[in-house]
């Protein structure tokens, strides 16, 4: 009779799980970015496809090369490498030489993730680290913005895309300043409707605020994102710029312009909310978000650059372990409130 007993496993309770897994959460972010990615292709044509593709290839290749031999391919399955590549690509100018985009993806994963110990161990957002690397290395190419292709059709490519590695990049074609640049250097305000729907010059993913918000709402509904972070960032930016507008309405941008221009929505919804590099505690999330918001405005208004989302997030990434340490929740039955 004993022989008929099944071989019993001894997995520890709890045996039940909610359905979400880490790769699913990563894929959710990819799905959430589909509308914004499609929009970038609509506005910038084949160039968008090529730049995004180069970043993803660079990121995935780094992930594959640096992985341990046995785990090769394993780490690709969680989709986090693809996500990093896509996010990086969405922050780049459409006319960027493809080899730079590739290099950005490669460095983002290599220096931003793998050397820290892989997924879950990095201090800085890998996509933004890749972008910071590109901005430091190729400042001209990274700040050469182009108008959406518009009438010239999907298959027209910005000539800059095809520049050969380490040759003088051919920066020509019709360059144009981003709304933030125009605001900062020429006090020329872009109409809000253009910002919301995306027909402006800028990086691939930062053009259409509406589609970015749509993806953010999807992530919120799927509970993949800590709503406190985008809400606190956007509120801080809005409040801060309202205050500035009250001081001098001609010099400073309006709150809505601040929220919808540049990479703020992309950064607030998809990069600042990277769980690995943002605080894990609820109070910490508020502090983190407020910090990002304040830094964004400080850099935009008082710094030398028109856009500050990247540095704002990276700086707050660095502060995350400290924030976590000082915002531990009050344990049940301890401290005030007990009894």
């Amino acid at each position: 009779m004993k022989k008929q007993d099944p071989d019993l496993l001894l997995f520890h309770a709890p045996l039940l799980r909610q359905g979400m897994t880490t790769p699913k959460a990563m894929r959710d972010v990819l799905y959430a970015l589909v509308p914004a990615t499609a929009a970038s292709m609509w506005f910038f044509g084949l160039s968008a496809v090529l730049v995004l593709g180069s970043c993803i290839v660079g990121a995935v290749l780094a992930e594959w090369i640096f992985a341990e031999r046995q785990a090769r391919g394993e780490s690709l399955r969680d989709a986090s490498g693809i996500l990093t590549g896509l996010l990086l690509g969405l922050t780049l100018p459409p006319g960027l030489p493809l080899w730079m985009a590739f290099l950005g993806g490669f460095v983002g994963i290599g220096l931003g993730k793998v050397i820290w110990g892989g997924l879950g161990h990095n201090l800085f957002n890998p996509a933004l680290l890749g972008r910071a690397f590109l901005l430091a290395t190729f400042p001209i190419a990274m700040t050469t913005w182009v108008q959406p292709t518009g009438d010239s059709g999907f298959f027209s490519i910005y000539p800059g895309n095809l520049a050969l590695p380490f040759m003088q990049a051919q920066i020509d074609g019709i360059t144009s300043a981003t709304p933030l640049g125009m605001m900062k250097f020429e006090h020329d305000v872009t109409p809000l409707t253009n910002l919301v729907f995306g027909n402006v010059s800028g990086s691939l993913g930062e053009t259409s605020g509406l589609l970015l918000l749509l993806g953010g709402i999807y992530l919120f509904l799927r509970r993949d994102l800590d709503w406190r972070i985008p809400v606190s960032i956007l509120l801080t930016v809005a409040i801060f710029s309202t205050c500035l507008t009250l001081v001098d309405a001609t010099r400073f941008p309006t709150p809505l312009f601040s929220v919808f221009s540049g990479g703020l929505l992309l950064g607030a919804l998809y990069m600042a909310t990277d769980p690995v590099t943002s605080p894990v505690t609820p109070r910490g999330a508020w502090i983190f978000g407020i910090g990002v918001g304040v830094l964004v405005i400080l850099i935009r208004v008082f710094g030398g650059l028109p856009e500050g989302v990247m540095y704002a997030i990276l700086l707050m990434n660095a502060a995350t372990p400290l924030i976590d340490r000082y915002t531990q929740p009050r344990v049940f039955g301890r401290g005030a409130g007990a009894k």
Partner: protein
Amino acid sequence: MKAFRLLRRNFEHGVHPAHHKGQTEDLPIQRVPFVQDYVMPLGQHIGVPARSVVAVGERVRRGQLIAEPGGFVSTGLHSPVTGTISEIGDFRGVDGRFAPAIGIEADPFATQQVDAGEAIDWQSLSLEDFITAVQMAGIVGMGGAAFPAHVKLSVPDGVKIRHLLINGAECEPFLTTDHRLMLERPEALLEGAEIMRQKLGAEETVIGVEVNKPDAIKIIRQHIQPGQPVRIVPLKVKYPQGAEKMMIKSVFDKEVPAGQLPRDVEVNVNNVGTIVAIADYFLRGMPLIERVVTVAGPGVTYPANLIVPLGTPVREVVRFCGGLKPGTREIIMGGPMMGRPIASLDVPILKGCSGVLVFTEAQTAGRKEYPCISCGRCLEACPYFLNPSRLARLSKARMFDEMKQHHVFDCVECGCCTFACPSNIPIVQLIRTAKDDLAHRKESEE
């Protein structure tokens, strides 16, 4: 503000696993036939094991004392059947270790009637005698912890118990024992509650039931006598609503301070099954020799709610339910969130065993573990507001001492964090490992 929070009847955090109670919630409690061999482990409650008072070959009657309490935090043990003591020695226990137990062979010709069967005049008992009686009757917490019931009754001088809280939450998925007891024996529940309330000198009895058992709430309401100081509090369906500190928070909006007991906020908490056992002993003279067990899960042919004599091997219980389906991979004693896996079908049903749950591939398929991405889902799940993510990381690094600063000993191992973790990190297991290590080191230092 406080009134508003009372309206919500809730504690913060926690998780929402699917109930899975449909399999058995409508099945009346059935009695399992007697089998040949029984095993009564001497240590089936928290605390000191009981001490055997019988010898091999001795004839025992059903309900006869076979082991006496080994200390204050210990209870008596009674024979679940009329028969002969076949062996006193080490038997394989639920945790896989050998532990002292008494083997009993049932007498096939006995009627298996309870001989005792006499009510006890509990009203005239002094509190000390009452506590001793509960201890000798072998009554322990029937919710799963198996903590001796009389210890909770022994309140130090100066501490007043104002509320007797009866725990009918049954927040563990699959289990329906408390639900069925409330439906089928509401009189016994209210009688036992009255005995406990009077002996504790409490002002009122509060019965907390999750709102997914509206029939139980209705039936108990119907049985409450006019003027009886009993109220029933419907609670939000959320795990772990039945953890006593969570339930106190939900019902009275009080936080039991860490390291203290419910009595420190003037509450005494008992499970529905424990209260019914009290009634059975004082009104019918039956000590704790059997209990209600839910047998369920996708691997059981005929799920059921059963009265099982203690010491019945799981094998016999499962056989009564039509056996295991092919593809059975794991059997859990207790609930799926906090229960313990058993390695063999030969382990007996114990006082604290509320369920025998049989799981198949779908629940036990190897779950790939991913790195922690600090998503914070565990923090939002932990009803004690701990930081499970940090605790798991520290445990993996074997930094157990640091875990003490993160209040690892406040963790009750409810499993919410592990349930919520998208990376399938066995957080509770990591925490248990740390607690074990810390406890052992403390022991060896002493």
